[in-house]
């Protein structure tokens, strides 16, 4: 039995090693894909995580609000701050044109006298509070409003705009509160002169609540999602599933060339022969995995890209990659059993993997997909695997986190093998 299995494994390995196109599909194509896709997506991920979105800022106010917004934007991780073009400060119209030309994604203009308008508004509000004259309350409604202009490039994502506008509201509200506090202090100071200095300083020097954005991760450090952290596992999974092509192709060839007929007349079970294929292709998948990880660890950094962070669970990585390998192999065996010709196997295999990978978040991460597609993504085994890798490489989780995904992948393997067995029986039961 063992001798037969070893012979089946040896035969499969020899056939695979002599199939140069098959080897290229298995190893070179995914490595190229990782390089190309990571380089293409790197800038997109950078705009999200590293440099921030490019913003042009025009401070016509030159007062508290203008400076507060300017400081806030300068210190924000969300944007890449600019207030000059070619070394010159620009006007609101020039800012609008720069955004329209695609030089910046967002332009923000704080209008002239914006702080004064707020100040006037607050002053009248406070005065009305201290006044016994009820008629003054109506005056506040006649004060000029502040109109901050935001120019938007249509390609800018809604989520970025929401962040920018909420930050602006926060700045304006902060300035308003500050001015209100100062005006109250001044009014109180006129009533209680010895408290005047203390109260105004108290507000200026106090920052009770601060914010810091941290990616939720179970590791001690912070793993930032970037093109490498997404693309390396995503395209590795894609490559592992792409073994469907050579695997299904080799099975169809056996049928066409007649080897399978001879094998069916021999005292060896069909399952034993299939096991030989499964073992070889699972090993191939694991080799692919190691190679692709090496690309992320050693080769992508040579191109100035971030180094792949493998998280803190080597066991988790082994479990999810092994389960992925089995799922991919089972899928290949099923395709090879169903297909009648090599063309059928190639077309069905390639299309199904492209579809499952697109749905599963390989091409575009699921978190930027519309809700419907995100719900569909859970049907793809590539998504179960990718989610497992996200758990390990982005969220810093351990082996327990990937077990549900790994179990689903193994169930998928068993289902595909059962379908292959049924199809094989049906075809032989002529």
């Amino acid at each position, binding site marked *: 039995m063992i001798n037969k299995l070893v012979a089946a494994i040896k035969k499969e390995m020899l056939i695979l090693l002599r199939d140069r196109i098959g080897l290229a599909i298995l190893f070179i194509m995914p490595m190229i894909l990782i390089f190309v896709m990571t380089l293409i997506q790197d800038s997109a991920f950078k705009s999200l995580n590293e440099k921030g979105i490019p913003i042009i800022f025009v401070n016509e106010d030159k007062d508290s609000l203008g400076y507060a917004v300017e400081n806030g934007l300068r210190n924000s991780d969300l944007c890449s701050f600019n207030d000059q073009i070619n070394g010159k400060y620009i006007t609101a119209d020039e800012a609008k044109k720069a955004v329209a030309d695609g030089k910046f994604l967002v332009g923000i203009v704080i209008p002239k006298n914006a702080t004064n308008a707020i100040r006037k508004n607050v002053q009248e509000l406070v005065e009305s509070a201290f006044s016994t004259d009820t008629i003054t309350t109506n005056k506040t409604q006649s004060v000029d409003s502040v109109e901050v202009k935001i120019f938007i490039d249509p390609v800018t994502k809604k989520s970025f705009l929401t962040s920018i506008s909420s930050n602006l509201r926060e700045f304006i509200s902060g300035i308003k509160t500050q001015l209100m506090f100062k005006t109250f202090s001044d009014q109180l100071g006129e009533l209680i002169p010895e408290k005047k200095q203390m109260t105004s300083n108290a507000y200026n020097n106090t920052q009770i609540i601060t914010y810091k954005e941290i990616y939720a991760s179970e590791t001690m450090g912070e793993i930032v999602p970037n093109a490498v952290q997404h693309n390396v596992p995503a395209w590795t999974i894609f490559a592992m599933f792409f073994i469907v092509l050579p695997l299904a192709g080799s099975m169809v060839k056996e049928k066409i060339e007649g080897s399978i007929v001879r094998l*069916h007349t021999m005292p060896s079970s069909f399952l034993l022969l299939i096991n030989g294929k499964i073992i070889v292709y699972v090993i191939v998948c694991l080799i692919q995995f190691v190679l692709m990880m090496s690309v992320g660890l050693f080769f992508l950094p040579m191109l100035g890209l971030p180094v792949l962070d493998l998280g803190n669970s080597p066991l988790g990585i082994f479990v999810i990659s092994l389960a992925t390998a089995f799922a991919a192999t089972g899928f290949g065996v099923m395709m090879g059993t169903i297909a009648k010709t090599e063309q059928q196997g190639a077309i069905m295999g390639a299309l199904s993997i492209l579809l499952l990978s697109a749905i599963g978040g390989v091409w575009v991460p699921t978190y930027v997909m519309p809700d419907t597609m995100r719900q569909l993504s859970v049907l793809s085994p590539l998504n179960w695997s990718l989610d497992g890798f996200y758990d390990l490489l982005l969220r810093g989780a351990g082996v327990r986190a990937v077990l549900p995904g790994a179990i689903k992948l193994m169930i998928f393997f068993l289902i595909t093998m059962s379908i292959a067995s049924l199809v094989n029986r049906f075809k032989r039961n002529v």
Partner: protein
Amino acid sequence: MEQSIITIENLFKQFKGADVAAVKGISLSIAKNEIFGLLGPNGAGKTTTISILCGLFRQSSGHVVIDGMDLSSNLTAIKQIIGVVPQDIALYPTLTARENLDFYGHMYGLSGKDLDAKIEKWLANFGLTEAANKRVSEYSGGMKRRVNLIAGILHNPKILFLDEPTVGVDVQSRNVIISYLKELNQQGMTIVYTSHHMEEAEHFCTRVGIIDYGNIIAEGTPLELNNKYDGCNKLEDVFLHLTNRSLRD
């Protein structure tokens, strides 16, 4: 007649969706150590009959006993004692002849030095030692046929099923193949053989059965059949007399 090694009773096979049965109640007995030729025009039911005997697919009805074992209930045991040489070159083209034979030998349960010795012996017998490490895809048609045959006899089966073993080969290769098959038969191997080559069958087979439209229409030694039908001097005459001269699909 020696003891029967294959007994077929009312063998019937109708493929799913087919209007007509491929085999319509064949009954046949093949004796131990016979070279039995199953001859017939295209679509007569030869390959279907042999495929059932080899366990490739099940009969719709009927009874087959091979070496005392019922085919339906002892398929695995029967597969141990039969060898099959299919009409197609059932070899892996990217593997060498030696690698192909090593794989198929293992599938028959052979291994180690015994397998190596058998491979070397047959490669030498069929003049393939020098080309043994070449990929089969680089072989000529005759060389491929010879390796195809070796793959079916490596384990020294009791019964050998040959489906047109010499189709598309040159005279030299055919002579070598026939000569070794006769030698194997003399050593005790029963051979069941199909062919369109009547002259070859006449000289090679000890007995023939002519099959047409799924029925055995004549059975006997080539000489018996020649004598049985008027104006027939050779097996080809008998064959044409019984199956008509009209073209078959």
